[in-house]
């Protein structure tokens, strides 16, 4: 490898667990290891630790602790929210509304629900990735029981008008779920003010441990259990609690929302500088997603004439971690469903690059990434038949 040091710009994929979080978790592995369901002191300590973490999660999103349920991650929260709500309300109706740009944890769960007899409307976003409020209103039928719209998109970073959607749902008596996995720590969230009924979050997206998450369930919202078994989590989510993970999630979310504005401003400024530099130095590229309503760290650009996986490999060689919506990256046949949904032409979608900045990124990183990115794009274009044709036409 060319570089020893890693410049990590894939924070939407996952983040390094914060050393403070690890420190907080450590005693709960082999020192205070009691099963929270047991009666003795060792176990009561674990239970207290879980309740402390629950309070922290609640505070971070404006909920009460009784409304927080710990899960094994964003995917489980999303599955639970959708399947649990759908099955427990199917007598009332079987129609669900979501968007075409949700994470697969939502989309594939909807596919599953369709097999179980539910119908699903997938709202298309506009070119910037925004869902239109009028489209939501128009999609609602007598049978609509649930609307699920992600808070912020994981690929293009576009932030949705959650409060307005929540308001409509509350008015109509429809349950509103939002997948806030990418939003926590990046966007101010208050489930109460925003009329949110269900909210999914995932620890490893905000410097917490992998395999941890939570589902916020507003008091009074009926939802079936998804994991059946012991009496944990008020009998709503069975299974011996991942005590160290839950403790870590609590510390991570507390830190994530602390001084959030200051920290996200720094990241947004860095991101904007990198964006500007890229557009100045590299021709034939276009930004995907919304200009302003986007996650502070998110850049999603298509570089014409080249393919994303090879770009990622060259960047990796230069010690830069990034991601792409190219089909080749996933071994699937189609490029990102999100880029398709916002109307990016398919051949251009193959050349997408996602850079997502985080706390540890610096100005030097921005400079370095810009320089290496330019080299990589030039190298790939130099061997691209599409670029050769384009250059010939231009002459």
């Amino acid at each position, binding site marked *: 490898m060319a570089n020893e040091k890693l410049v990590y710009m894939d924070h939407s994929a996952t983040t390094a667990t914060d050393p403070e979080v690890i420190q907080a978790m450590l005693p709960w592995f082999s020192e205070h290891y009691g099963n929270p369901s047991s009666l003795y002191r060792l176990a009561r300590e674990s239970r207290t630790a879980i309740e402390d973490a629950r309070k922290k999660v609640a505070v971070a999103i404006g909920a009460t602790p009784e409304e927080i349920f710990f899960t094994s991650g964003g995917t489980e929260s999303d599955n639970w929210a959708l399947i649990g709500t759908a099955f427990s309300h199917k007598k009332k109706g079987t129609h669900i509304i979501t968007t075409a740009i949700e994470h697969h944890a939502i989309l594939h769960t909807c596919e599953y629900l369709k097999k179980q007899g539910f119908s699903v409307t997938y709202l298309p976003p506009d070119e910037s990735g925004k869902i239109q409020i009028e489209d939501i209103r128009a999609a609602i039928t007598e049978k609509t029981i649930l609307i699920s719209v992600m808070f912020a998109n994981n690929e293009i970073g576009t932030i949705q008008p959650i409060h307005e959607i929540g308001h409509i749902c509350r008015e109509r008596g429809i349950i509103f779920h939002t997948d806030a996995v990418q939003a926590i720590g990046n966007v101010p969230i208050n489930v109460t003010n925003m009329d949110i009924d269900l909210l999914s979050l995932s620890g490893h997206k905000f410097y917490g441990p992998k395999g941890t998450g939570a589902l916020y369930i507003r008091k009074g919202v009926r939802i079936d259990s998804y994991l059946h078994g012991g009496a944990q989590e008020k009998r709503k989510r069975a299974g011996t609690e991942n005590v160290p993970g839950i403790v870590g999630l609590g510390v991570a979310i507390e830190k994530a929302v602390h001084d959030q504005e200051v920290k996200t401003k720094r990241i947004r400024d860095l991101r904007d500088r990198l964006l500007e530099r890229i557009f100045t130095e590299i021709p034939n590229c276009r930004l995907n997603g919304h200009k302003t309503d986007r996650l502070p760290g998110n850049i999603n650009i298509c570089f014409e004439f080249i393919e994303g996986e090879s770009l990622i490999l060259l960047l990796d060689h230069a010690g830069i971690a990034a991601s792409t919506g190219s089909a*080749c990256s996933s071994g699937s046949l189609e490029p990102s469903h999100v880029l398709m949904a916002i109307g990016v032409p398919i*051949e251009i979608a193959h050349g997408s690059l996602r850079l997502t900045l985080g706390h540890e990124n610096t100005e030097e990183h921005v400079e370095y990434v810009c320089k290496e990115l330019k080299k990589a794009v030039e190298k790939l274009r130099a061997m*691209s038949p599409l670029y050769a044709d384009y250059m010939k036409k231009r002459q």
Partner: protein
Amino acid sequence: MYSEKVMDHFMNPRNQGEISDADGVGEVGNPSCGDIMRIFIKVKDNIITDVKFQTFGCGAAIASSSMATELIKGKTLEEAWEMSNKAVVEALEGLPPVKVHCSVLAEDGIHQAINDYRIKQGLSPWEEKGGHTHSHDDETCE
């Protein structure tokens, strides 16, 4: 994911470029599938004296182009025609299953270049032995 050999050919592709006065040119793939390969050959006395490629595609596509061109350079047209995608995969010390189609693309590109040469020479094109067809001919990515 990729073998060292693949990474070597991806990072330092051999025979990358264009032959402006090529004797045969083949082009396979489809931009909407994320890969296009263009193969240029120079032929003298039935021997491929030079070969170059241009590729839009993933790491495996670029490495396959590089390796395939290496394998046929200096070979007779018959030998080059016989070079299968398997030979490319082997020479690359393996490809992930989902990437094997890239080596097929390279084989196809070479076949197209050879037949382009044959047609230009007034010869009838050789026929594919069956098995795979050009991966992306029909606008559906495999």
